[in-house]
């Protein structure tokens, strides 16, 4: 990474500059529009959350009823925010690591337009009453062609980068992104086909549904999030990843075990026991990829934790990586029948989902965007205070969210299993925790507003134009060279 030959250093800089300039439009479009959906999803989230403790809030109109706002929130976040940002981050990293500038500008522009149209049409469809009520797949069927067509262009661009790559080592982030670019369309196509387009008989729908929904996280958001951590942690602290072999084990064990996880959402339901057991086993086996990744990241970071004090990207990404370990361990434990017997059907699951999708995936993506945007625009983030105003409310918000709903959901589950507790008492029991969720959610939304303000301010060319990166603290003497904006 640090050749002593000044000519080689100059060439490598020049190469990255070309890659980033070529990525400016296509990647910038995806990242910019993902922010719009992040804000839209936050508004929908707050509405849904408030309605659970104030059911009369904005209840007159059908399009704002809880049962529509909630899936609209989930889908704008999953497909509008995370997937859109994931495509942008994935393409950029792939282009950087293959050392090839992105060439498919017009097709990717079309892809970004189609992808956003799909989200707009889908969200509108849910709110007007066309939701499918299939969890994680609520966008009505007329949104699917937009999404699938768009993704075809994305896959094509990814394949082109890989085919034209400069010879050399294939880094682990490339594995994850490349695989995820195939996994997601296969997941979506299968699930949409078997559940919405030509639905199988109702008893067979939940297994297909949860195979999809779990893998949307496991084989789509997770690989992109891990790819970002694998790429950015070594970049920022300026040392290689701890172990190549561990990262390979982590990849293959994730690919195999995660794909088999979905049925743990149906534990105890009217399905064959072997089906559920297969997923329980696979869920517990997730310890292997999770522990290997955690060890690998930890030993890469070891001795450099101080960097969290000044690097915004690193702080978000490490928060995400640690949350990945936490959410995965929690997931493996929750898949045990004895634990699931308490937590299933409760707010505990909602908390768990947010730990994965927010504390891990979203925080990692935030970090990646903080790294990518200055390189795309050749311009720095305008204010470290706005980045702080993003990080702390988001971090504290998700902590409140997770702790309150995990605790409240656990109590709810224990009481649900006590047949003599009147149902209304359980509702009352959960109310304070639902209120706390609104507090946590508001903080997260505040963080997103700061993020959006920062982003727009940066686009408006009012950011610092200098070469110095925007860090939480002025760059320390010992900070490695990789911190400058355009390395």
């Amino acid at each position: 990474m640090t050749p002593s030959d000044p000519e080689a250093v100059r060439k490598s800089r020049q190469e990255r500059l070309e890659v980033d300039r070529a990525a400016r439009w296509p990647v910038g479009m995806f990242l910019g529009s993902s922010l719009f959906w992040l804000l839209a999803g936050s508004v929908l989230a707050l509405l849904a959350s408030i309605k659970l403790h104030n059911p009369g809030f904005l209840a007159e109109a059908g399009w704002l009823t809880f049962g529509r706002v909630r899936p609209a929130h989930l889908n704008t976040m999953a497909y509008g925010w995370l997937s859109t940002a994931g495509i942008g981050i994935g393409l950029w990293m792939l282009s950087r690591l293959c050392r090839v500038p992105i060439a498919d500008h017009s097709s990717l522009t079309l892809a970004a337009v189609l992808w956003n149209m799909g989200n707009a049409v889908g969200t509108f469809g849910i709110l007007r009453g066309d939701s499918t009520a299939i969890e994680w797949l609520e966008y009505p069927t007329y949104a699917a062609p937009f999404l699938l067509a768009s993704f075809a262009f994305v896959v094509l661009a990814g394949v082109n980068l890989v085919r034209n790559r400069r010879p050399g080592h294939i880094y682990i982030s490339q594995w994850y992104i490349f695989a995820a670019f195939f996994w997601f369309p296969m997941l979506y196509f299968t699930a949409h086909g078997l559940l919405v387009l030509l639905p199988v008989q109702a008893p067979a729908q939940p297994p297909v549904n949860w195979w999809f929904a779990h893998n949307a996280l496991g084989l789509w958001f997770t690989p992109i999030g891990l790819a970002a951590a694998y790429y950015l942690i070594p970049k920022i602290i300026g040392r290689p990843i701890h172990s190549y072999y561990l990262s390979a084990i982590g990849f293959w064990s994730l690919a195999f075990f995660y794909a088999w996880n979905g049925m743990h959402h149906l534990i105890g339901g009217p399905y064959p026991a072997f089906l559920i057991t297969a997923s329980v086993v696979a869920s517990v086996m997730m310890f292997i990829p999770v522990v290997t990744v955690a060890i690998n990241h930890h030993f890469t970071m070891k001795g450099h934790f101080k960097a969290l004090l000044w690097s915004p990207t690193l702080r978000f990404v490490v928060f995400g990586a640690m949350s990945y370990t936490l959410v995965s361990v929690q997931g493996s434990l929750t898949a045990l029948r004895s634990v699931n017997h308490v937590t299933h059907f409760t707010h505990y699951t909602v908390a768990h989902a947010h730990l994965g999708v927010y504390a891990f995936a979203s925080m990692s993506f935030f970090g990646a965007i903080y790294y990518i945007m200055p390189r795309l625009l050749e311009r720095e983030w305008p204010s470290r205070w706005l980045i702080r105003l993003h990080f702390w409310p988001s971090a504290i918000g998700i902590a409140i969210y997770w702790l309150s709903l995990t605790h409240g959901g656990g109590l709810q589950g224990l009481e649900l299993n006590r047949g003599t507790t009147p149902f209304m008492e359980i509702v009352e029991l959960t109310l304070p925790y639902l209120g706390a969720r609104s507090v946590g959610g508001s903080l997260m939304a505040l963080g997103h507003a700061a993020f959006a303000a920062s982003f727009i301010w940066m686009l408006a060319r009012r950011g610092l134009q200098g070469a110095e990166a925007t860090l939480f603290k002025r760059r320390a003497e010992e900070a490695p060279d990789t911190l400058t904006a355009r390395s």
Partner: protein
Amino acid sequence: MNRFRWIFAGSILTFVSAWCGLVLLPVWGLGDFEQVPDPGTGEMIPPELSSLEERGRDVYVADGCIYCHSQQVHPARARTDIERGWGSRRTVARDYMNHGRAQMGTMRTGPDLSNIGVRNPSETWHFLHLYNPRITSPGSIMAPFPFLFEKRKTGAGGASPDALQLPPEFAPEEGYEVVPTEDVRALVAYLQSLKLSSYDVPEAAKARIETKP
């Protein structure tokens, strides 16, 4: 050697393995149920939804009832579910064969509805409860559905027979009445049809014995 080929092949293979196990197998094993004659009456069970009930199911889907209500006397929790009066036996896969879109659900912010047609058959109760859950169930956090009702001027001949008998604190202003729309009539018909534990399907005998307290 082009190692991207191996990464590609490997990630497709792992994907396909799970696809066979968790998609293909359930679709084969659970996607082909048929109705059976009731041992007592000879009628085919579980019954199909009427067209009105189907429309009601669509309202149930569109307005996202599934996000708070399950529709299963959950096999693993059958004892407490039955104790709560949510059904007389656990539900089995065949019970859902005519539901079109599965609504088993994963959340119990509200009570289970698999047998709401047995537990609460009253149309009037459902109308009031859907118009504003606090009328029938004080303390409930369920969303009200005023948009499934029509608020209109009371006719010259006085209140129409369909108008809801609302308690004063929920009633509209003088001279107005609240009547159910076709959508909410269909929804209530669907809810009344939910009697999943009532049918004597072949798997039911086992489902009953297993759940004896």
